[in-house]
């Protein structure tokens, strides 16, 4: 996406000062949230900025058709996701990843339960959660493949309902659930990798990294 040097004339109709004020309020309210989601989606600051700019440009152009009092956040996210998917499809060389392995929904909890090492150390769930606290969760999330990552971002970071996500992504609720659950499984598996690596680091001969001397 190139630079978006545009003028308000793109909107086609003369924007009233009142429209502008209402739109500016939307920008102020949702900019940080949209930027955060764009960053998790695109995994790149410049691309995230372009995507958010594109989103607000499109939103501004169609602001005349937006009904006040309806769900502005969902409306903005729908525009964001459409812009992202368009750009993503054009530039994507990543095939939709298919994980054949049936790992169950609650991978991390199952791992905590079955880990001999965590059991011996006391409270396995507490240990695992503290390792997740130390993990690079952003990076793990960004490694979840599409279209599953988008579902996790919309549900678990933005806390949209299944129905809202279905409308935002223009897919059936059943598809939302299957994408979301697969995305979560994938994320849990990645987080387990981080936790396990952190564990090996601590159990090795070298001293643990975060204990004050």
């Amino acid at each position, binding site marked *: 996406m190139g630079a*978006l040097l*545009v*003028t*308000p004339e793109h909107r086609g109709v003369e924007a009233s000062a009142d429209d*502008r004020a209402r*739109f*500016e309020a939307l*920008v102020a309210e949702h*900019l*940080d949230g*949209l*930027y*955060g989601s764009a*960053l*998790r989606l695109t995994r790149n*600051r410049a691309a995230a*900025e372009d995507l*958010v*700019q594109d989103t*607000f*440009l499109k939103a*501004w152009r169609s602001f005349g058709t937006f009904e006040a009092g309806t769900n502005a956040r969902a409306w903005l996210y729908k525009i964001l996701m459409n812009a992202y998917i368009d750009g993503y499809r054009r530039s994507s060389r990543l095939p939709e990843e298919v994980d054949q392995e049936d790992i169950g*929904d*609650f991978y*991390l*909890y199952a791992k*905590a339960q079955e880990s001999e090492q965590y059991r011996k150390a006391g409270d396995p*769930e507490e240990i695992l*959660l503290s390792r*997740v*606290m130390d993990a690079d*969760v*952003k990076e793990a*999330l960004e490694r979840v493949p599409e279209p599953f990552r988008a579902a996790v971002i919309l*549900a*678990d*970071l933005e806390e949209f*309902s*299944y129905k809202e996500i279905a409308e935002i992504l223009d897919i059936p609720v059943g598809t939302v*659930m299957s994408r*979301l*659950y697969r995305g*979560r499984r994938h*994320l*849990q598996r990645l987080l387990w990798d981080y936790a396990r690596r952190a564990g090996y680091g601590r159990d090795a001969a070298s001293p643990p990294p975060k204990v004050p001397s």
Partner: protein
Amino acid sequence: MSEIDCNVVLERLWAFLDGEADEASSRELEAHIEACLHCREHADFERRLRAIIKAKCSGERAPLALRAALDRLLGDPG
């Protein structure tokens, strides 16, 4: 009143934690989770995990350059 077992809780846990289980199902799950230590520990774990993920992946601030670009977009003078 049907009593549900732990496997049913597992099947519906994500929908339940997402606030997406219907009212009757939610009541059954709540009652079971209240009474069953194992399911309660599991549900707590998933809740805390989700809170950690959200906390660690949120809180980005849009850069000033983006704010400025949006001001220009809206035709702010200057």
